[in-house]
């Protein structure tokens, strides 16, 4: 049983982390493509329309991989987490069904029109189709966040028959206070990913001295969108999400921050290694009293450490939780620094020739993916040992009839298949970037 639990968790963690590499770019790029189409529609600047078409191509590859890796997510609720589905399906089934009905159809129908229908639709309807694809992907994100938020902070439910829970208020479920901030935080994170990808491609074109008119558009769009989104990521969304955790999952906050002892005026740890045997943080580098201030807006406020809670309530993997949280925050800070420097260079009209900066920009695109993944690991590990916070523990949610051997079979299958998918994806995106935006639009006009 222990083995099976671990394998069910590993498979879900792997398929979910892998899947989310793609939707975050879909949601971020979706918004930026709409902005490019909008600028082109308003100014008549064909370069922006070509840029939108070029990113539309990459969007399509990315979207396809997002869809095919997304279907296993919904299925796994039933295949691997059957007891959880029986327990909570009456509640979260609502949002998952709504996602299918309201978001996926919107997204996929208009994606067909966006990719295949530019000539037939004309510029205005084509803009509309791009907007609908964006809207669909963001609505889809909301329903998924609401589902996750319910697992983090259950609301709008009541006890049902046979020890299950059932929905008592759809409004409460959809407007879960946890979901609102988690959604905004997550979506700004997606925009950061989209911005850095666009900026990195632009930096590459400028450094390679090719397609430079597009390189400039990409760097400008990416840096400005990246600046706005990475600041919104920290404040207010990240701050508010942190307070959600502090007030509703105080033991998770203590674990994330590596705070073993309850203290007045708790420090904010920047670097350090949790030592679970001695229950202390090794080599800490911290800002005194900062955690108390960030959480309670008072320098001397008491913050509960792990010692205030029985170990049965502690998250099951505190070091990984601590590291993923710190990686997320650390990278977020770096994103603000890079985009602020870029904006300053743009303002001084030096950005396109600042080769050192362009190198940094070009090489920085993987880090938002890492930061977003680390953020989700923080959310999901922070929820442990609960599957539904305070209601259902993770070991009680698995499919009892599926043996460890069968789970390992499918986990290995997913590993192999997703490796192939990843290689293909990288190959195709590299190829699209190599072909370049100018050639793409030239080809289109033939």
């Amino acid at each position, binding site marked *: 049983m222990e083995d099976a639990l671990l394998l069910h968790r590993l498979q879900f963690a792997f398929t979910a982390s892998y899947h989310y590499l793609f939707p975050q770019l879909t949601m971020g790029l979706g918004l930026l493509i709409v902005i490019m189409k909008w600028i082109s529609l308003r100014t008549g600047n064909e370069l922006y329309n070509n840029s939108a078409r070029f990113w539309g191509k990459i969007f399509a590859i990315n979207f396809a991989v997002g869809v095919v890796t997304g279907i296993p997510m919904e*299925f796994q609720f039933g295949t691997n987490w059957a007891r959880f*589905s029986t327990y909570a399906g009456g509640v979260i089934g609502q949002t998952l069904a709504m996602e299918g*009905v*309201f978001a996926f159809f919107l997204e996929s*129908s208009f994606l067909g029109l966006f990719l*295949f229908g530019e000539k037939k639709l004309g510029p205005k309807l084509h803009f509309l189709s791009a907007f609908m694809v964006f809207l669909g992907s963001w609505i889809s994100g909301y329903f998924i966040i609401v589902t996750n938020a319910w697992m983090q902070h259950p609301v709008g439910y009541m006890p049902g028959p046979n020890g299950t829970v059932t929905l008592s208020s759809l409004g409460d479920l959809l407007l879960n206070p946890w979901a609102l901030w988690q959604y905004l935080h997550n979506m700004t994170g997606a925009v950061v990913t989209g911005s850095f990808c666009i900026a990195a491609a632009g930096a590459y074109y400028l450094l390679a001295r090719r397609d430079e008119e597009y390189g400039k558009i990409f760097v400008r769009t990416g840096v400005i969108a990246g600046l706005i989104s990475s600041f919104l990521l920290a404040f207010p969304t990240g701050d508010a999400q942190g307070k959600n955790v502090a007030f509703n999952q105080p033991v998770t906050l203590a674990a994330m921050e590596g705070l073993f002892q309850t203290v007045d005026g708790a420090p904010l740890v920047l670097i350090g290694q949790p030592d679970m045997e001695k229950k202390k943080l090794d080599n800490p580098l911290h800002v005194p009293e900062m955690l108390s201030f960030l959480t309670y807006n008072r320098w001397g406020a008491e913050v509960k450490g792990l010692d205030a809670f029985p170990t049965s309530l502690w998250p099951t993997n505190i070091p990984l939780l601590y590291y993923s949280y710190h990686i997320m925050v650390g990278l977020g800070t770096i994103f603000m620094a890079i985009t602020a420097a870029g904006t300053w260079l743009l303002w001084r009209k030096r950005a396109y020739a600042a080769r050192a900066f362009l190198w940094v920009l070009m090489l920085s695109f993987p880090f938002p993916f890492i930061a977003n993944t680390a953020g989700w690991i923080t959310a999901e590990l922070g929820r442990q040992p609960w599957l539904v916070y305070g209601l259902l523990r993770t070991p009680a949610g698995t499919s009892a009839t599926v043996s460890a051997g069968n789970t390992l079979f*499918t986990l290995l299958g997913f590993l192999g298949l997703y490796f192939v998918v990843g290689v*293909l994806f990288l190959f195709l995106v590299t190829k699209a970037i190599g072909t370049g935006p100018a050639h793409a639009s030239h080809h289109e006009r033939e």
Partner: protein
Amino acid sequence: MEMLWFCAIAFMLCMYVVLDGFDLGAGILHLCIARNNDERRSVLGAIGPFWDGNEVWLIAAGGTLYFAFPLLYASSFSGFYLPLTIVLWLLIFRGLGIEMRHQVDHPLWRSFWDGTFSAGSALLAIFLGAALGNVVRGVPLGPDGYFFEPLWTSFTVQPDAGILDWFTVLMGLVGLSTLAVHGGNYIAMKTTGDIQVRARANARLWSWGVLFLSLAAAVSTFVIRPGIWTNYSEHAWGSIFPLLGAAGLCGVFYFNRKPDDLKAFISSSAFIGGMLSSTAFGLFPYVLPSSTIETYGLTVYNTAAQSYGLGIGIVWWTVGIVIVLGYFTYMFRSFRGKVKVEEEGY
């Protein structure tokens, strides 16, 4: 209320099989009817804007099933663990086949993805048929409503049968031939020239398969699950569903020879819709019968969510589906007419 949701999910699954059925069918016939690169591009161009949206019906039906009948979702998905995971892998491979083919201009690259697309489509059609076969035959449910089925055991219809036995394999072949006909009709409708002629010829050939295999499946169903006919004897109006299916099959034969491709396509859609609704009507109120002790069977009543959720769901689901039907109408109108190869997107 439970019955309403049973109908809603049956409707969504019918939509899925009719819509994704034509692109799966196009995939099954892809290698036979499209011989050169232009012809293969026109097959993919004919399904290109639609296949993704069509597949969403499966995801949305899955989501709706989860929401309306959580225990059924949990029990069937964990019980069919292996085949469902394999279906996921096939969906991934087949989707890649469609999306990857045009990305690199090289004959070997294209051949590989043509093969992937076609093999994936054929296997999915067989699995979908076999899945229906499992639901009709019943599964070894325990008293808690859970079960687990291996992929195969002895291929006989026993209480310890696997996913594949002779009956479910037969149903799989019914699925394969039905979707081949449906896809052939669709391609004939969307193309001209040689490929259209071949699509019609293939649809005609496979429709004989549909006729004989469906008869065999109907007889076998009577042997394996005689209870399926009780609903028909008690509510004679239900015979409208098998009659619709039979009329659809006659239409397939008639309009294929005329030839009128649109009407042939409508006929194969009617056949699919008629056969699936006949099965649903016969099974009701069971949604997953037991192959061991009959009272262990899952029904709409012992698996449904509570009434508040189901009630409020009716409101948003109806609104949502009306909007979705609007999208599909608009999309099919936007891409109506014959597909032209040079207009392929991206």
